[in-house]
């Protein structure tokens, strides 16, 4: 086992039953992710990107292989080493999911609670960890709203009154407030206007840098991968066809499918 690995996928695979036969959504996925590294997963719709992300985040269980995570131990600055997610209890996984991990959904509505205010959305994870001091929670919410460039005057408004770009930024603040070490992102900029997208990407890039976050970002946009990720993984029909350094994969793609993907965009 290599020292320092945060997340490790080993021959990980997920199958769905179709007409009594297994259909592999993704299969034989292998990689090690280190603290502070950003890995982009690219491929067209139906290639298994999102299934893989859900597998990594323990929202789905592996049917083959395994996913391991370096769990932070109760003592500060210590870890218990890599733990197979399949060996962890529901309670342990829940705790991981709301402290050490973040999950940014493609549709902000799926990741937000639409019936409570923006500020309450940011404070929720802290409250789940036992924070009760109202003044402190509000202060944290204000400071995170500023960091993701949200107008703090909107703190008491419901997320439904926010624009799409603002909702996405609120979702990011809500995830980062517990200082996770690993964030999963599913098409974080898809569906936003180009200018909103650029601003969000730039913000993500800075936060990842500043907080030394590790991230797995699913995207079909190669420019997003180039901007955010040091490494990338190209998926087709549930298989990883190519992986490596982002600029190497994009500038000198080896696999037929990656070449097609790169040559199909106007400016990768």
């Amino acid at each position, binding site marked *: 086992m290599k020292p320092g690995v945060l997340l490790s996928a080993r021959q990980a695979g997920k199958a769905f039953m179709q007409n009594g036969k297994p259909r592999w959504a993704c299969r034989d996925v292998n990689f090690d992710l280190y603290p502070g590294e950003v890995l982009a997963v690219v491929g067209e719709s139906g290639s298994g990107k999102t299934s893989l992300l859900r597998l990594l985040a323990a929202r789905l269980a592996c049917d083959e292989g395994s996913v391991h995570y370096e769990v932070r131990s109760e003592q500060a600055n210590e870890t218990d080493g890599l733990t197979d997610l399949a060996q962890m209890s529901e309670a342990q996984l829940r705790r991981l999911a709301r402290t050490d991990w973040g999950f940014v959904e493609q549709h902000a509505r799926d990741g937000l609670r639409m019936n409570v205010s923006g500020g309450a959305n940011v404070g929720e994870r802290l409250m789940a960890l036992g924070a009760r001091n109202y003044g402190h929670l509000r202060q944290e919410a204000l400071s995170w709203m500023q960091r993701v460039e949200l107008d703090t005057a909107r703190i008491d408004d419901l997320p439904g009154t926010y624009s799409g770009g603002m909702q996405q930024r609120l979702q990011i603040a809500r995830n980062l407030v517990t200082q996770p070490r690993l964030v999963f992102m599913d098409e974080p900029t898809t569906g936003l206007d180009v200018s909103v997208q650029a601003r969000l*990407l730039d913000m993500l890039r800075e936060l990842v840098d500043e907080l030394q976050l590790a991230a797995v970002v699913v995207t079909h946009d190669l420019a997003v991968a180039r901007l955010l990720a040091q*490494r990338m993984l190209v998926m087709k029909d549930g298989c990883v066809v190519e992986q490596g*350094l982002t600029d*190497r994969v994009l500038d000198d793609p080896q696999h037929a499918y990656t070449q*097609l993907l790169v040559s199909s965009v106007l400016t990768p």
Partner: protein
Amino acid sequence: MTALIETLALSKTFTLHGRGGLQLPVFSGINLSVLPGECLALTGHSGSGKSSLLRCLYGNYAASSGDVRIRHQGDWVSMSNATPREVFEVRRRTVGYVSQFLRVIPRVSTLDIVADPLRRIGVAADEARARAAQWLQRLNLQEHLWHLPPATFSGGEQQRVNIAHGMITNPAVLLLDEPTASLDADNRRVVVALIQAARDQGSAVVGIFHDDEVREAVASRCFDVEQHRSPA
């Protein structure tokens, strides 16, 4: 003296799967080795594979066969066998690359772009910005541009941002792809002086210089990529 960068029987062929697996051979069997303080100029007509060779040295292109080895913190790293993480580390600490075109990040100021490589090796923000300012000053980039993202800059201005970005950490291995192509005579002289200073400090430089005068001023040897051109 040990070399800082070398290639062993390095070959590059592009395979175009979209064209029925068409093979585009670029070069083959390249052996080169660059010592500290040397500057190797790659020569050959356009299309002879100079830039491709430089990109292979940086790990931006994968070698088809053979290897690129870089002396990184006292050890040889094989770029063909290194993990992405190792290549990233070699680039962060050891290799500077000045490409022909600047890849701009939306909204990030020129000063921060130039300071970024220093930040990545742990230099504090204020100090990194101060040193970035010195480099931009030295390269005669007008001060009112420093706080703007370089997207709207002229070719020559962008090139100088690129040079500052690639050289600011005084990397042991410096790869330069036509660093003076869009510069006027004054700025060309500044860049020549910077390359000479890098050599004096013991960097190994590999570059493509179209301007004969620049090449004669900075290069200690030439390497004709044309000689290694693969038969098409």
